[in-house]
């Protein structure tokens, strides 16, 4: 469908010259000089294309009329910046642990770039996981939803800030083949409860009840360490930062 050898099947009614095909970009001023000259010369000779030029100009004006469309970028910007902050905190922890003993540090941008490269495509991976969960269906997990009696009318995505789940501290996506029993075990072992979800994308909002931030961080790490957890992130990004450095992390005892 995409391959189109030549101009052979162009409509007979219209001019089928190469110049006619370039007309739209002549109109927008986006042709290279040689092409622009060619089209200009052709326009001087071809009444069909001159008429077409005028009609395309009118079409372009109509297309550029946004009408009542309103743009409100602030909410999306805030959500994306929050996501960036979380990524930064996540990446800061291992870097701090590894860089101090050697005493040799890369310049900050290089260090950050290296870490970012390591984290590349993390988001697409977990988004893909969310899609898989969604695609396979929420049959098993849906029963939990019913048990919670929660309505999921909204279309919440991973990047949506959770303002309407007061007890929610974490968001997570679980493996599609995880059973309800396994899910319940995993959550209860970490003192977690489902606050809301799953959303259409399979995202659960989880809560710890009255827990310290350290506990949220611990639960977060535990979830991330579990292979059945496709994705986990904190929902609260304001307030005290999650424990990042080694000092704040409860060390595993030998």
């Amino acid at each position, binding site marked *: 469908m*995409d*391959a*189109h050898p030549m101009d052979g099947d*162009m*409509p007979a009614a*219209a001019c089928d010259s190469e110049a006619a*095909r*370039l007309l*739209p*970009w002549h109109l*927008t*001023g*986006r*042709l290279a000089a040689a092409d622009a000259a060619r089209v200009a010369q052709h326009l001087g000779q071809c009444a069909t294309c001159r*008429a*077409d*030029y*005028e*009609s*395309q*100009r*009118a*079409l*372009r*004006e*109509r*297309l*550029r*009329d*946004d*009408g*009542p*469309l309103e*743009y409100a*970028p602030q*909410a*999306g*910007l805030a*959500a*994306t*910046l929050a*996501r*960036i902050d979380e990524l*930064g905190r996540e990446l800061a922890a291992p870097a701090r642990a590894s860089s101090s003993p050697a005493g040799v540090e890369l310049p*900050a941008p290089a260090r950050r*770039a290296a870490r*970012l*490269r390591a*984290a*590349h*495509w*993390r*988001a*697409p991976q977990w988004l893909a996981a969310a*899609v898989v969960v*969604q*695609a396979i269906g929420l049959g098993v997990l849906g029963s939990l939803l019913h048990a919670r009696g929660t309505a999921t009318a909204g*279309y919440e*995505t991973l*990047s949506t800030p959770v303002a309407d789940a007061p007890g929610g501290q974490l968001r997570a996506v679980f493996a599609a083949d995880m059973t309800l029993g396994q899910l319940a075990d995993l959550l209860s072992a970490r003192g977690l409860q489902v606050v809301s979800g799953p959303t259409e994308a399979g995202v659960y909002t989880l809560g710890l009840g009255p827990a310290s931030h350290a506990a949220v961080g611990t639960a977060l790490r535990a979830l991330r360490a579990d292979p059945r957890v496709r994705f986990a992130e904190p929902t609260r990004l304001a307030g005290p930062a999650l424990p990042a450095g080694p000092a704040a992390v409860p060390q595993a005892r030998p």
Partner: protein
Amino acid sequence: MNRPALPGYLQAVEPCPARPAATGDIPLDPVEGIPTLSERAEGDAPERRLLARVAEGDRDAFRDLYLRYHRRLARFLTRLTHRREDAEEIINDTMWIVWQRAADFRGASRVSTWIMGIAYRRALKMIRRAVTHERAMLLEAVDDEPSNDQVVESSADRKLLERALAQLPLEQRLVLELTYYLDHSCEEIADIMECPVNTVKTRMFHARRKLRVLLGDSHAAGGP
């Protein structure tokens, strides 16, 4: 000669009819978020500088870039998905990828081409997912009454145009949008859509022909 010739610097600010498109009530360049002619003449150096700062982790630069791109992404993606909420989600995913991959941008293309390409691919993924879920929003032509409040409210004229656009194959609709709204060149569109330049020209050609039929000769798409 009724009046003396103007000095050169004043001649430069005489009414400038150079751009054939700049007529009528609708200003063609000052669409917020779309580079103006003078910005375009400068190339995308400012955006490259912004992106370089983003690669260094500069949040302020990221904020600038986000705000610069939000409008054109919103418009482009709303055309693709027909749903503002989907468009917003794709914008955030796109800009998130931009944040993470800014250091990988090698400057082989314009910044805008690079970002629109990311958005295009994210949108295609979402559309495939949506089709799986029988939301089939793309095939939902714009009805007489909007199916929900996400569908842009339209004047009669706009509604006619929207309906005609909805009948174009997705690729043709996007080439039209990338050309006439976002002012991308043929080569840039080929980069964004990852197809040969000739395919872009052909898609545009067919889009114009189809619109001419759909809108009727009295409308913009075709003169008698």
